């Protein structure tokens, strides 16, 4: 099993979610996050004083999927979250040992 963690633009959440639905991914977790990549944010101006906004708002989507479809999921996220501009985000793939459903105690209920 793999945990696929995608940091994407906030306005791309719906596109990614819809694409994952079409792929049959059943559950996901979305978190508001802040961060920066290589560009280290941008400059803003308030009442004539410039200041840097180094941590930009992003959304993080986490899904846990079987090894078999992991590559498809990554490809789908990349395709649906891409604009081609700087700041599109990152996808991380992590191995995980087990998952449990809290209601039943059932193991690996994917």
């Amino acid at each position, binding site marked *: 099993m793999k945990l696929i963690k995608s940091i994407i633009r906030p306005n791309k959440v719906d596109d990614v979610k819809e694409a994952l639905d079409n792929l049959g991914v059943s559950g996901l977790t979305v978190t508001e996050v802040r961060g920066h990549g290589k560009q280290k944010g941008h400059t*803003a*101006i*308030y*009442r*004539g*004083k*410039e*200041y840097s906004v180094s941590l930009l708002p992003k959304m993080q989507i986490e899904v846990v999927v079987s090894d078999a479809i992991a590559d498809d999921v990554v490809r789908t996220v990349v395709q649906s979250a891409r604009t081609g501009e700087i700041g599109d985000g990152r996808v991380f793939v992590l191995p995980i040992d087990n998952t449990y459903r809290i209601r039943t105690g059932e193991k690996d209920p994917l």
Partner: protein
Amino acid sequence: MHDIFRTRSSRTISRTVWLVLLICITFSFGGALAAQQADPAGIATGDKTNAVDAGGNAFVVAEPTDKADPDYAAKKKAFDEYQAQAAKEPLAVKLADSVGHVRIATNFGWTLNTGYLVLFMQAGFALLTCGLVRKKNAAHLMMLNFAAYVFAFLAYYVCGYAFQFGAVAINAAPAGLGGTPTLNHFLIGSGQWGFLGGKGFFLSGPGYDAGSNVLTLFEVVFMETAGYIIVGSICERINFWGFLLCEVFVGALLYPIFGCWVWGGGWMSQLGATMNLGHGYVDFAGSSVVHAVGGFCAMALAIVLGPRLGKYGPDGKPRAFPAHNIVFVVTGTFILLFGWMGFNPGSTLAATDLRIGVIAINTNLAAVAGAATSIVLWYFMFGKPDISMGCNGMLAGLVAITAPCAFVGPNAAVIIGIIAGAIVCFGVLFNERVLKVDDPCGAVSVHGYCGWFGAVALGIFADGTYGAGWNGIGPASYLGKAGQGVTGLLHGDTSQFLTQLGGATLCAIYAFAFTFVVFKVVNAVRPLRVSKEAEIEGLDLPEFGMLAYPESGDEVSAAV
């Protein structure tokens, strides 16, 4: 932590407060024994003597008493004719009683309702100032705004109103409200040299009067405006007890004293009669009396407190603390604009004064001209228009038109708005970069500088179409013209301009120096500023134990 009731100095303070209360009660009951009877039910207020035509001519002709008056014979003749007519037509006299009563009732309704509009401005100030600060201090800002209304109101009730209007009937009786004849004693000074009113403490005795209470409601919300202005400069670093002291100071002393000089029939308003200076010092709705007093008081407090931590870098350059909610800022500004429709037109204290139409449109014109100027100016200077400066510009226009709104035409109102919009931009930069006064919401620039300018602008642009007989000057004719009102430099009255220039400057110095001296001493006895740790953490938790946005992730609660 800052429990005022547990310290020795506070026990001394409370003893002093009780002593002052006792003195005030004595004065108020002394006043109750005066010849003029108060009219709490409003039944005796408004009769045939209040029936006046559009030109201000009374229905009732008063019997002339001064036989040395050169016009005595003519006046006596008019009086005799009136008496003869009245004897022939008793029904007309009865009708005039009704007309007079309805006239006063209309003015009560107008003054109260415009007062309620001004009251609503407090909500505007709360949103504006809260939006302009950082999220970590949002609850603190709301508490300051709330407590300002509450405590300053009580201070004004105890003695502020009496100090300001306790002698209003002597030189500046509000005819539209029935004249409030019971408020007729100066505590300090007398005649045309009054310095402090002396009746109406606790609104009892002479202050327990329907007409007087209409005036109280309208004027207390004006005082509150001055009280709110200071919040914009001292926020994000003042502690709560220090703030309460500031509000009581404004409501009981700072505001009422200057208010008495200009609006309570005090010495500044009478300079036309005593020193031959135009119509005396004129401020229609309070550019100086309300806004410059608040603005320069705010400046003194900001200096005493010092800048917020981190406002200036090690190189001395100012840093940005961005507004946390622009939605609040813009909403608050529009509420203020709406409230100002009570502030300026309501200051006629009479719906029967039809100049209210001109005043309303002048007020709006100056507001939009000020906003447009600051938006465009900022666009040129920094490459991007700044909405918070646009809001400051709108308020700057409003503050500046407040004094001259009744005396100028629409074109002058636009020019005044444009100049104010520029003043506020340069004022903000000047305070921040040159004086290094940390003023989070731009209150000093908006209310102080533009308030001063507004009072001076009256002396420049007043066109003489309104205000004949203002402060008792030239009721028949002025500058050789019948019906000529308050006139500025551009229309031929240099003395009015000089009076305005001197008066507005005196106002700035008075408010700044009085506040600075008092709070420099207070600050030396007990610091007005919160601890460094509290300021870094945000004042919400250390001062009040709560956050404005507890579920925003700033603090994870385990109490659910």
